[in-house]
């Protein structure tokens, strides 16, 4: 679905990404893992068209999107869910969700999908007319995820959905992402929470200093001693735990 080939990108003259190769197959969940400042957000911005691609190419759904404008990329079905704090605080929950549906014009279907989002995230339904600035962290994450879904994406890219959230809430969020994946949406999740991401995803890439260091099937990576040392400084316990929807 998404193919990134030898991409170099950055801010102005500052090159952050140095030859990234990454692909996401349709219908799968792929994780991109790394610490702070490794280039994860830069990569998402580059894929979404907010940053120019200096070298390399990006292909989505068999179409080249390397030089496409951000709003065209969204319209082609590739939607990014930004970090929680970027909902529109001065708009209500419902208005935020409606902004997500901006590219669509099928009013009846939009209404149908809106109700769908509400049944998926009941907490949002209770707060549909409240200003999103009043929501808790977990609720805002649900809101921006819901907003992304309102665009009826073929593929959803999530930027650190677990950031600044309590562990119990993180579990809920990841269970929701799994459910979304079951509906056929391809998922790329960018995370610092390695354990949760490897439990959720089928395939993972580890990024450091703007380069992909390791990649592989998550069940293999979870037991890989290099990963354990790299991120966890030890062993990953309880690898048999699966996320059931």
């Amino acid at each position, binding site marked *: 679905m998404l193919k990134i080939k030898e991409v170099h990108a950055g801010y102005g003259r500052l090159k952050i990404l140095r030859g990234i190769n990454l692909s996401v197959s349709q219908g799968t969940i792929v994780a991109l893992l790394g610490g702070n400042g490794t280039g994860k957000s830069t990569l998402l911005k580059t894929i979404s068209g*907010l940053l120019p691609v200096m070298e390399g190419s990006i292909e989505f759904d068999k179409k080249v999107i390397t030089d496409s404008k951000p*709003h065209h990329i*969204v319209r082609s079905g590739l939607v990014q869910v*930004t970090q929680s704090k970027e909902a*529109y605080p*001065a708009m209500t929950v419902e208005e935020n969700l409606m902004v997500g549906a*901006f590219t669509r014009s099928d009013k009846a279907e939009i209404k149908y999908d809106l109700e769908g989002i509400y049944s998926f995230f009941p907490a949002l339904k209770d707060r549909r007319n409240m200003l999103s600035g009043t929501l808790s962290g977990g609720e805002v994450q649900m809101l921006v995820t819901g907003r992304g879904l309102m665009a009826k994406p073929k593929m959803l890219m999530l930027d650190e959905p677990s950031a600044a959230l309590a562990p119990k809430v993180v579990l809920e969020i990841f269970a929701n992402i799994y459910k979304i994946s079951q509906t056929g949406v391809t998922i790329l999740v960018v995370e610092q929470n390695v354990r949760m991401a490897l439990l959720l995803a089928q395939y993972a890439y580890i990024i450091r200093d703007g380069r992909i260091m390791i990649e592989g099937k998550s069940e293999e990576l979870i037991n890989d001693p290099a990963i354990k040392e790299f991120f966890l400084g030890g062993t990953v316990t309880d690898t048999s735990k699966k996320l059931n929807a």
Partner: protein
Amino acid sequence: MDFDFNSLLAFIIFGITIGVVYGIVALGISLIYSGLDIVHFAHGEIYMFGAFIGLFLSQELGVPYPFAIIGAMIFAALLGMGIERVFYRRLTQAGGGYTVAGMGMIICGFGMSVALMNVAFLIWGAGAEPFPVNLGMPLQLGDISIPQSYVLTAVVSMLLMVVLNYFIRHTKLGLAVRAVAHNKDIAYLMGINVPLVISLIFGLGCALAAAAGVLIGPMQSVQVEMGYLMLMKAFAAAVVGGFGSLPGALIGGILVGIFENLGAAYISPSHKDIYAFLLLILVLIFRPSGLFGVIAKVKA
């Protein structure tokens, strides 16, 4: 001594009327600031152009006054969008606010102001043109006689406010404007054509300035330098109400208008133009963020 309440009321009413015009120009300034992160220093000249176009439509082409207002608004919107596309876009896309490009934008605005003023001078000359509009007899409110132009100004301004508010709060495009004003990157990620919406916001701000120009025309005369003082006062109004806040711009304008009229009436009429800035200084001392001031980047 018998305090003349009638006069006071008259001054307040006139103050509100002129204040609403300041408010409309201030609204344009705040709108452009919300959308483009820049203070448009040529805004006064757009207002001036609006007045001249309105005058032209009304006097030379015999267009009825209300339609002259609409015509001037459309012209100014197109002029503004053209200027934005040709001169401002590269600077605004490179950054706003405190960046080098943002500073460059301020200088560019001043330059555009001078350029527009000179173009107007070449077209219409330096004289002060009267803007005669026959609107009928003044409206009698008890002992106070209000010229019809004042009444029309108040009515048209209210109408503009209502339409603008409806547009921003209840239409899809208005939602896009609010989204872009808040955060351009996220607006892009919603699939919004951000450069197009920015052009639209700019055009809207310019249309408002032009409407103000045509409304003021019959109350004062129309001349090439009228933009300068209006920009200063409207800017003061925007700051008083809270820079970047749309309702604040309107309230700020009304306050400036009332303050100005009361000052001219009860303190000294020969220093009329000072009062707007006096109010500005007072507000900056006691409440620097303005009445409805938005401190961080929460706009529209």
